[in-house]
């Protein structure tokens, strides 16, 4: 780890100011991905801008009554999402997903905003955000999940843009099924299925260079929400990772199995 300047701004605006024009600055939320990267000297930021002192980023709230969105602040930890009565009651699939991220230490420190900004292709939250049709709220705009993930560790965020919250529409049902890597506990394949009044959305993490949707399965499930549909899923080979520990064939198979299990868990 190299030396860096450490900042603890009191507001989002101050944080943005610290980032502006400084490509070598990095935001620090829970640090569960960033700190290992620094320790291994894989990144050498000149400045770390901690979000810890900024008020208002740690709330979980429902907006607009019973049918309104669930809004989770960017600094809410995985454990807080997993154990929140509100999340558990309104989107239990999301609470369960958060409860299966990494290990207890990671869940106690890691945050939803940090995970989404990092956009690890094997992280769990991207599957939830995409399947639930969530909106990423930043200091300056709202970004639909469909527009947010742009590539391997790549997002639509500007260089000095800061996630402040994530807005989740509440589905009728949702569930996440994950095949964790035995060592890292990252998703080899994770499939999130969400059934809403407007149809079904299915998102896959782990298997590709970024999280992606299974639109054919979504259509089939929108017509008939039955787990058997999953066995017909054809994952486009171009969406799958190559050169990793798992072969594309196995990944494609796991997508089917995890999709089936997620659908079953919804029922």
């Amino acid at each position: 780890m190299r030396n860096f300047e450490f900042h603890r701004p009191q507001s989002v605006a101050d944080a943005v100011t610290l980032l502006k024009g400084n490509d070598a600055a990095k935001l620090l939320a829970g640090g569960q991905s960033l700190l290992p990267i620094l320790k291994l000297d894989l990144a050498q930021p000149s400045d770390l801008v901690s979000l810890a002192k900024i008020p208002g980023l740690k709330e979980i709230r429902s907006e607009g009554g019973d049918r309104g969105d669930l809004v989770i602040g960017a600094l809410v930890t995985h454990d807080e999402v997993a154990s929140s009565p509100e999340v558990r009651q309104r989107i239990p699939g999301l609470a369960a997903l958060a409860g299966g991220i990494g290990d207890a230490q990671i869940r106690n420190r890691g945050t939803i905003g940090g995970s989404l900004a990092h956009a690890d292709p094997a992280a769990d939250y991207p599957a939830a955000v995409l399947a639930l049709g969530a909106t990423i709220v930043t200091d300056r705009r709202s970004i639909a999940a469909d527009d947010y993930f742009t590539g391997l560790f790549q997002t639509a965020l500007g260089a000095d843009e800061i996630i402040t919250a994530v807005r989740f529409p509440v589905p009728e049902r949702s569930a996440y099924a994950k095949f964790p890597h035995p060592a890292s506990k990252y998703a080899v394949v994770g499939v999130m299925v969400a059934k809403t009044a407007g149809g079904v959305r299915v998102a896959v993490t782990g298997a590709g260079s970024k999280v992606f949707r299974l639109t054919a399965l979504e259509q089939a499930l929108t017509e008939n929400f039955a787990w058997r549909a999953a066995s017909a899923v054809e994952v486009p080979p171009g969406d799958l990772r190559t050169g990793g520990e798992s072969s594309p064939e196995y990944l494609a198979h796991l997508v089917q199995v995890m999709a089936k299990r997620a659908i079953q868990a919804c029922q």
Partner: protein
Amino acid sequence: MSDQGLGASVARKEDRRFLLGKGRYTDDVTLPNQSYAVFVRSPHANAAIRSIDARQALAAPGVLAVLTGEDAAADDLGGIPCGWTITSKDGSKMVAPPHPALVKGKARHTGDPVAMVIAETRAQAKDAAQLVEVDYDPQPAVAHLNAAVANGAPQVWDEAPGNVCFDWHLGDAAATDAEFAKAERVVAIDLTNNRVAPNAIEPRAANGYYDDVEDRYTLYTTSQNPHLTRLLLAAYTLKVPEQKLRVVAPDVGGGFGSKIFHYAEELLVLWASKKVGHPVKWTSDRSEAFLSDAHGRDHVTHAELALTADGKFRALSVRTLANMGAYLSTFAPAIPTYLHATLLSGPYVIPAIYAEVKAIFTHTVPVDAVRGAGRPEATYLLERLVDKAARELGIDRVEIRRKNLIQPDQFPYQTPVALQYDVGDYPATLDMALQAIDYGKFAERKAESEQRGKLRGFGISTYIEACGIAPSALVGALGAGAGLYEAATVRVHPTGSVTVFTGSHSHGQGHETTFAQLVNERLGIPIENIEIVHGDTDRIPFGMGTYGSRSAAVGGSAIYKAVDKIVDKGKKIAAHLLEANVADVEFEDGKYRVAGTDREKTFGEVAFTAYVPHNYPIDTVEPGLEDSAFYDPKNFTFPGGCHLVEVEVDPETGVVEVVDVAIADDVGVIINPMIVDGQAHGGLAHGIGQALLEECVYDTEGQLLSGSFMSYTMPRAADLPSFKVGNHVTACTHNPTGIKGVGEVGAIGVPPAVINAVLDALAPLGVTHLDMPATPEKVWRAIQAAQGGAA
């Protein structure tokens, strides 16, 4: 006689400091004016080094020196020696290439040390290491056994054509051929034994200090055998006489074999300390450990078993390729030969055995002993082969073993592969384990699993191992460069408390407790008053260290022998005090008593008298009460037993879950049942890890792909069920304690039981073979292939 003696599960004395985080490990030792070393390691598996430019690094803040292979050669630093020489079939000695501490001109595996950067802080050394410019010329490399023996393979050493280090054999080829020629059935198997990394929780570290006033070197190091390290430093590498060298191995956080060996870094910190005038400390990080700790296993084997039609074993033939890596680590050549082929009879009567072992160089980290060391490889191939034979002959897997086990009345049993087993009761451990797992109800459990969509399998392994390596004269004749005895000094203090100086080294085994229990058993002194000192060549007369499950059997026997001398001397003193003949004095329950009377003196009174000899047989007995013993074992010890495993396989994903493990071991006389259970648990976790999770994966270029805990999967508590551990004791017949050894039984016995269980679960789907580790994708592919699928 005592609630702290043999058989008492007393709490471990050393745990207080460990649980409070107050263990003192090598990295905790920071000396005045400490400096820090970081190594520049080759990123290539095979590369010529055209030049090294250290100018920028030398100019970096805090840098004291940048040392290279040229500097080491200029100072006549010795290469790292191999401590065991194997003689090939044709009578030639193995190829033992040079193993420079810092490479010169050529790197031969990723991680090979190219330069050593020393700075005032570790961070400065790390930063400066990145500034050392090495001009590499990468060349084709070879990492895998079958590729290394192929025609046209890249050559690791010019002096080892075909990458062959040695081509060795054991057993009677003609007798084996004759049995195969007339065999009613022959069963063959091809398998690999996966390469594993040792992964002790404490990474290796070394802190070297040259004192120019005393002209003396001190090395703190993570070692399982500091005296051996001192011997090799003195005789081969640093070339400084032993009285000028002190090697201290303080608390050590696990070894699993990997800390037996003398490593380059130990030599280099001592050498560098003299050059820079500061103590020099190096501490490995985990990524570096994967590239610099000796790995284990890595065999490819073809084996055949000749049987009668009704399943009696007649002969075994084994051909093994063993990966040595790029250099020969300290005991590497002994592992696939004398610790592997000699175990191929297992617990069975096999009239003829012939084994051929070719050791092969590759552009990989050296391979040496890891927990079990050769014996897991032997057990794995034999138990896989026996299971396959049972299936092919249509004989129950338990029955084929029962039919071929050496019976209790056949001991001592001479195998066709050199060893003579002294004692055991293999049918007893088999029955004990079967009962513990409730084998009779397996079919019910299988049906219940099936209802949940899981395939349940039952796996068995009846195994033998050889511990307490072994008479020095024998190992010398077989090529060892060292004796394999153990030493102990027992010092009785005037008030009757005791300090024991042992040449064994505890790095998790609990010697501070168990050795004290041994002394308590003999002298009746509370273990709180018995201090066990280990790990410091200045304090302990000599020692061979701890590996191969030898400490209790060999080190414990040395302590027993020293205690015998103490007891005998005490008798002479007591006889004088009691005005009796020495022959009439008995020692029991911590008291010297004139036989048949109530006249007695406590051990404490005798000890006090020895140091305050006012009323004393001074003409015939010296004052003081201290003695030493060296114990050289007459034979190996032979723990054995039966390991049973039940697994559930998820046929959709290929995930294997170990749902039950029941083992029955015979580890000889038990000192502390709690510690013995703990050793069994640790070994089982290790063995299950190898069977299902762990593997050092090299690509064809010699890059280690599994170089961190993000990809190399260590077993965790959640991966393991509660273990059912039983013991059936037959006492070792040739040592004074009756102890055999327990540290490796789990890692040896359980891997084949796991794979046999997985294959049993998958048998209905037509799967007949899997190699370790049985990862989900591998299992899924085997299912797909058996079902004619695309995989």
